[in-house]
C-alpha cells in the first residue's frame, strides 16, 4: 500500500505544477493591471504603476511564478491586493463553514444513498424500485440554485421555520448554528444524494446477479446478511470513486450555496474575490483546492485497495 501511495503522489506532482502555472498565468490574463483594478479608474497612472511594482506585476512571468510558487510551498500564498491580509490567512479563515457543510452533506448523502440503493437495488423493477428511482431522477434534474430557491421559499418564507440566510458560528450557540446550517445542507444533499444513489443502485443490481450471491443464498444465509456482508462491499467501488469526485462537485456547489445564503466560507470567498477582482486570492484558492482535491482522490485510490483485496497485489 505504501508503494501505491508514493506512486499516486508522484503522479500528482506534474499535475500540480501545471495547475500552479495555469493559475499564475491568470494575473497576466486579466485585461487591466492589478493597480488599475484596485485603485480604480480615477487613480493616476503613477499610483497605478507604483502599486504594480509593489505587487510585482511588472516582473517577468517566470520570476513572478517562481516567487509565488516557492512561497506557496512554504504556505505563503501572497497578500491580497484589496485587504492586505495574507491570502493563506484569508483562506484558512473561510475554511470552516465550507468544510462543515461538505462533511455533513457527504455523511447525510451517503447514508440516504446507501439505504435507498439497498432498498431499491434488492428488488429491481418492482414498484418500490421505480418509485425511489423516480424521486432520484427528479432530484437529479434540479440544479443547486433552483433547489436553493425552492427550499428557501418553502421553508424560510412560507413555513418560516428557518432564517432565509446567514451563518451563525458554532460558538454563538448550537441551535442557531444548526438552524443556519440546515438549509445549505438540505440543498446540497438534494443535489448530491441522487447521484450517489444512482451509481450504487446500478452496481448493486449487477452484484446481486453474481453467482456468489446465489451461492450464499443457497447456504441459507438471510437476505439482509447477504445484502450487507456480501453485496455491499463489491458494489461500493464506483461509489467510493464518485465520493472522491464529489469533493470537486461540493466546492462548485459551495460557491453557489454560500452566495445564496451569504455564508462566509470558501465558496463565498471565491465569489467575493471575483467581484473585487482580487486575483491573487483567487489564485491561492484554486491552488489550495487543487491540492486538496488531489490528496482526497489519492486517498480514495488507496481506500479502494482496502475495499477490494484483489487490487492489493497489483501495484
Amino acid at each position, binding site marked *: 500500500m505504501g508503494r501505491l501511495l508514493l506512486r499516486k503522489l508522484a503522479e500528482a506532482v506534474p499535475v500540480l505544477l501545471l495547475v500552479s502555472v495555469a493559475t499564475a498565468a491568470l494575473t497576466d490574463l486579466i485585461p487591466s493591471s492589478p493597480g488599475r483594478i484596485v485603485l480604480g479608474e480615477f487613480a493616476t497612472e503613477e499610483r497605478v504603476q507604483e502599486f504594480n511594482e509593489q505587487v510585482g506585476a511588472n516582473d517577468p512571468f517566470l520570476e513572478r511564478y517562481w516567487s509565488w510558487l516557492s512561497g506557496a510551498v512554504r504556505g505563503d500564498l501572497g497578500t491580497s491586493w484589496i485587504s492586505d491580509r495574507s491570502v493563506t490567512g484569508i483562506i484558512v479563515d473561510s475554511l470552516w463553514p465550507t468544510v462543515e457543510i461538505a462533511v455533513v452533506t457527504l455523511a447525510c448523502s451517503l447514508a440516504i444513498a446507501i439505504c435507498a440503493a439497498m432498498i431499491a437495488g434488492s428488488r429491481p423493477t418492482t414498484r418500490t424500485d421505480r418509485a425511489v428511482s423516480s424521486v432520484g431522477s427528479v432530484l437529479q434534474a434540479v440544479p443547486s440554485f433552483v433547489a436553493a430557491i425552492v427550499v428557501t421559499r418553502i421553508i424560510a418564507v412560507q413555513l418560516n421555520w428557518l432564517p432565509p440566510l446567514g451563518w451563525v458560528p458554532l460558538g454563538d450557540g448550537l441551535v442557531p448554528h444548526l438552524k443556519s446550517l440546515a438549509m445549505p445542507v438540505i440543498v446540497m444533499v438534494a443535489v448530491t444524494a441522487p447521484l450517489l444513489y444512482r451509481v450504487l443502485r446500478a452496481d448493486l443490481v449487477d452484484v446481486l446477479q*453474481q*453467482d*456468489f450471491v*446465489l*451461492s*450464499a*443464498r*443457497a*447456504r*441459507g*444465509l*438471510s*437476505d439482509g*446478511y447477504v445484502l450487507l*456482508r*456480501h453485496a455491499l*462491499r*463489491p458494489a461500493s467501488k464506483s461509489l467510493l470513486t464518485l465520493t472522491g469526485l464529489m469533493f470537486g462537485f461540493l466546492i462548485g456547489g459551495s460557491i453557489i450555496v454560500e452566495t445564496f445564503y451569504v455564508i462566509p466560507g470558501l465558496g463565498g470567498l471565491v465569489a467575493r474575490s471575483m467581484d473585487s477582482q482580487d486575483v491573487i486570492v483567487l489564485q491561492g484558492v484554486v491552488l489550495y483546492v487543487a491540492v486538496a482535491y488531489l490528496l482526497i482522490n489519492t486517498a480514495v485510490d488507496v481506500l479502494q485497495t482496502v*475495499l*477490494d*483485496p*484483489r487490487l492489493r*497485489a497489483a501495484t
Partner: protein
Amino acid sequence: MITATAVSGPEPGGRADRAALVVEHLTCTIPGPDGSELRLVNDVSFTLAAGRTLGIVGESGSGKTMLVRSIMGIGPPTTSVTGSVLLNGRELLHLPRRQRRERLGAEIAMVFQNPMTSLNPVVTVGRQISEGIRAHLGLGKREARARSIQLLADVGIPDPARRFDQYPHELSGGMRQRVTIAAALGSDPDVLIADEATTALDVTVQKQILVLLERIQEERQMAIIMISHDLGVVSGRTDDLLVLYGGQVAEAGPTRHVFERHAHRYTEALLRAIPSLAAEPHGTFATIPGTPPRPVAEFDRCRFAPRCAHATDACTAGPPPWVADDGNRHGHRCVHPSDPAGAR
C-alpha cells in the same frame, strides 16, 4: 398427466434406506412474451436415497440447472414452481422464507460450476465457510473457525489454517472448488447437488474433485445429485441416471442399465457422440444435428423429433407416453426406442 418416476433407491430386497429427497411432478415455468407460461422444467419426478448418487445429464438448455435451483427454491423470481419436493420427508417447496433458509445449507447444499464466480472475491475463504456454520449451527466465532479449518483439511487443502484468511484469488482453480465444497458441507447437509462442479476445471483436477466427492459421500452417507453434460463424468460414478431433454425426462434408470440398454434415441445419440479410442482414426465425430429446443408452453409432441433420425409422424402426433420397465426401474419416453440388445 404423465408420470415419470425414476427411483434411485436401494435394489429390491436391500436395506430400507430412507429416501433423502423425493421430487414429484416438478414443473418450473416463466411467463412468455404472449402471456403463456413457458415450461423450463416439465413434470420431473425422482427419488434419491441416502448414500446414493443420481446423475442428471443433458445439453445446455435442457433444464438441468433450472431443475435443481427450483428444487432448492433459489430460481429467478420470475419463475413459478409447482409440484412437491420432500426433503427428509418434509416439504421444501411451499415453505415461508425463513423456514426454507433454515433448511438450505443444513439439509441440502449446492456446489456451483465456476469456483471463481461462486466465491465472493472480497471476502476471505474462511468466512465464506464459517458464516454458514454460524448461521445454522449457532457456533461462536472461534469454534466456527476451528470447524472450518477442519473442513478445509477434509477436502484436501494443505495448510488450512493459513488458507482460512486468504482470498479466493490467491488459490488455484482446483483449490477454490474444494473450498466451495467445504462451504457446502459446512452445516452437514444430507443432500449435495453438484451442478457441473467439475466442468470448469482441468481434466486432472476434475478427477481429484470427483474422487473427493466420492470419499465424502462414503464418509457421511450423503446423497449426491451430479449434474453434467459430460457422460464420462457420470458413468461409473452414479448409481442412477436421469437424461433430461428440453426440460423433460427422456430416460431414467440405473446408470449401467441406461448405458447398456438405452432406449430413448437421444440417449443413444449422446452415447454415440462420446469420442472413443476404438473409433476409426481421422473419422468424423458423431454429433447430434440441430440445436436444443426453446421452452414451450405445451408438451404435445416428442421434443427430440426434429433432430432424430428415427422420427416418424407418430412422434409428433401427441405427447409420447412414458414407458416404464418397473422390474429394472428403467423408463423412457420414446415412441421408437432403440434396443441395443435386440435386433433394431
